[in-house]
């Protein structure tokens, strides 16, 4: 086998499935690159946390979810929304703070929601999404709707106390929730080794009897399979599971992070050896499921979607001043 072939993922898939996973990941990548660009132009302000490098985690997980299953995450949320099927126009326009955004400009990069697509945010307080995710699972169990909730959080978030309070209750009450730890190895400038007594984060549920699996989060098919298993476990009434996705963020924590805590080599090496999109691209070519030209035209197609979203996001008007006072309370 030549070197290229060795990288091929042996996990089972089909042409259609792999192409669709490829497109979903590429959309996130291109969307995020554009968001970074718009930030640099001053069109997006405040905090903006890009998901570049971690695309396989949310795309692979989403592939094993069924309609009605909920997703919730922190502030690094653009990829999750796109994976849930939310429109890139609406997401980008929220980033620019315009009326066409999912929160009509009132939320920003970190705070978007779609009840229609079962995406529950978009949370800025590290760790807060974990008990809320377990609460969504409680509502599923209570209603008996057969749905599972997926709560995504980072390696840094996995040190928050409320995570463990949620673990305990989720297991105690067999809640249909999957805890997805996106271990990208850093929480801002702090590596996992510098912040965690137990760095094998999939073991973090052991004192609650919650089973955890460590997953190559750069391999979308491995993510898909692990998610399938955990989601089935939860749906079958056996309670929560933990998936530790080993992944990597290529960009800084947010836009203003000089990233002095890691070497440029570390980033370049991961990009060239473990890139989730390249990995799928290679397999598509080796399996002869797509030609170079076909992949190029997919790339073009996605760039058009993203360009359209960016155009929309810059031309959509600012929210009307009257929006300032709406949505504080509902009429009782």
């Amino acid at each position: 086998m030549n070197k290229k072939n060795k990288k091929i993922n042996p996990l089972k898939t089909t042409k259609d499935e792999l192409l669709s996973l490829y497109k979903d990941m590429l959309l996130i990548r291109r969307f995020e690159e554009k968001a970074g660009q718009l930030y640099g132009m001053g069109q997006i302000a405040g905090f903006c946390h890009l998901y570049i490098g971690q695309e396989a985690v949310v795309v692979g997980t989403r592939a094993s979810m069924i309609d009605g299953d909920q997703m919730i995450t922190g502030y690094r949320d653009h990829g999750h929304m796109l994976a849930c099927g939310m429109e890139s126009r609406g997401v980008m326009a929220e980033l620019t703070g315009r009326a066409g955004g999912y929160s009509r400009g009132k939320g920003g990069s970190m705070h978007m929601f779609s009840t229609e697509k079962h995406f529950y945010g978009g949370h800025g307080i590290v760790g807060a999404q974990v008990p809320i995710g377990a609460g969504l699972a409680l509502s599923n169990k209570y209603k008996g709707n057969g749905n599972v909730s997926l709560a995504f959080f980072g390696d840094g978030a996995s040190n928050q106390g409320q995570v463990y309070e949620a673990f305990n209750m989720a297991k105690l009450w067999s809640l249909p929730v999957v805890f997805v730890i996106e271990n990208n190895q850093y929480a801002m400038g702090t590596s996992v080794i510098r912040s965690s007594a137990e760095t094998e984060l999939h073991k973090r549920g052991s004192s609650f009897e919650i089973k955890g699996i460590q997953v190559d989060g750069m391999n979308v098919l491995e993510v898909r399979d692990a998610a399938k298993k955990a989601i089935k476990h939860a749906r079958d009434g056996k309670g929560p599971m933990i998936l530790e996705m080993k992944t990597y963020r290529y960009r800084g924590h947010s836009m203003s992070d000089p990233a002095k805590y890691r070497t440029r080599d570390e980033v370049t090496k991961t990009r060239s050896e473990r890139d989730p999109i390249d990995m799928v691209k290679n397999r598509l070519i080796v399996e002869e499921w797509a030609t170079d030209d076909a992949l190029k035209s997919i790339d073009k197609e996605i760039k058009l979607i993203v360009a359209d979203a960016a155009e929309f996001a810059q031309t959509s008007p600012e929210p009307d001043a009257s929006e300032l006072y709406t949505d504080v309370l509902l009429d009782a």
Partner: protein
Amino acid sequence: MAIDIKMPALSPTMEEGTLSKWVVKEGDTVTSGDILAEIETDKATMEVESIDEGVVGKIAIPEGTENVKVGTVIVQLLETGEKVNDLEKLQDKPINSSENYEQNQTAKKTIPSRDDLDEKRVSGSNVTHTEITVRDALRDAMAEEMRRDENVFIMGEEVAEYQGAYKVTRELLQEFGEKRVIDTPITEYGFAGIGVGAAMGGLKPIVEFMTFNFAMQAIDHIINSAAKTLYMSGGQMRCPIVFRGPNGAASRVGAQHSHDYTSWYANVPGLKVVAPYDAEDAKGLLKAAIRDPNPVVFLEHELLYGEIFQIPDVDDLIVPIGKAKVRRKGSDVTLVAHSRMVGRCLEAANLLINEGIDCEVVDLRTIRPLDSKTVIESVKKTNRLVCAEEGWGQSGIGAEIVSRVTKEAFDYLDAPPERVYQVDVPLPYAANLEALSLPGSSDIIKAAKKVCYKN
């Protein structure tokens, strides 16, 4: 099609930067993610990454150029085979959606101290002054106290190796080592509790919250453990601890990251609450807070960190907790504020003088214990009161002051007091809505005119 790579904004407050180094040269092939150049901002050196694949075209801004405005084209990225565009034709159109955004504009400006009244202690003609940012004044305060007392240590997220999320703890790790400058995991409730325990054990912890929004995770320890223990123990237990960090709205960071907690902590007996405005007070009050035997909540402001002020060159600058400061003398109306709103009041005062209104500006500096005496004396002179704060109105600091003034100086008031505060909604992200939400100098001017019955 060629893509213009522009001078990027790397933080909400960045307006320009230095293009320190080109990592690529004209004609190089790059792919998305490759580093093109290094730029320096007031806070850090950053890398500009390519956003697409292509060939590096004409470099428009040579390395070493300073003050390159955000949005200026620095280089073009060409598709393979494309010709270099005539860059002369490209206009330098800085794009910045927040051009009119009050907060950004003033983020780096030095507020003139011409109208400030120096405290007697340092106003002697032989005291020299040095310019310093609030950020460095805070750092110096901690460094001086750590040199003075080996039981003083600091802990918090990113305070050590990263040198502080907002660089307030810059170089403390280098000087004091990891025993005394401690990076914590993201577990506010836990490390606030550990700080309280360490204080009860005889140490003098400074607990930094990356922002006070995250101190909500820890507020139970601040109030239930730190503030109440002296009382509950009949005076036995000590808890000398400083909880510090930026409080209130930064810039475009949305509702969960923009909360002003001043009145929350101000409500609690057993705490001291400090909220300085300029560098001198930041330093002098932080040093006093660290020496104080009580738990002190020390509220800073992110948008003040980069502001430069004069600070007196004295050996051990201590500003006593519990004393307000008259920052500008005036006869017509008293403007009361703390933290960043003091700057807004001084601006308003400078404009109002042209309209024949002479304002006295009182900087509270400490919120608990509140120096109502200074405020009341001022109102007795001006007979008019405007209270300004960044947080919401209900149960706010202004409500407390108005209540004290009406009780103590009712007969002196010539007009009902006015208040200026944030619109009663969570802070929105959109630029226009955010600007509408936050109080500014124009709101203060309006309120001052109203109490003077002028229009």
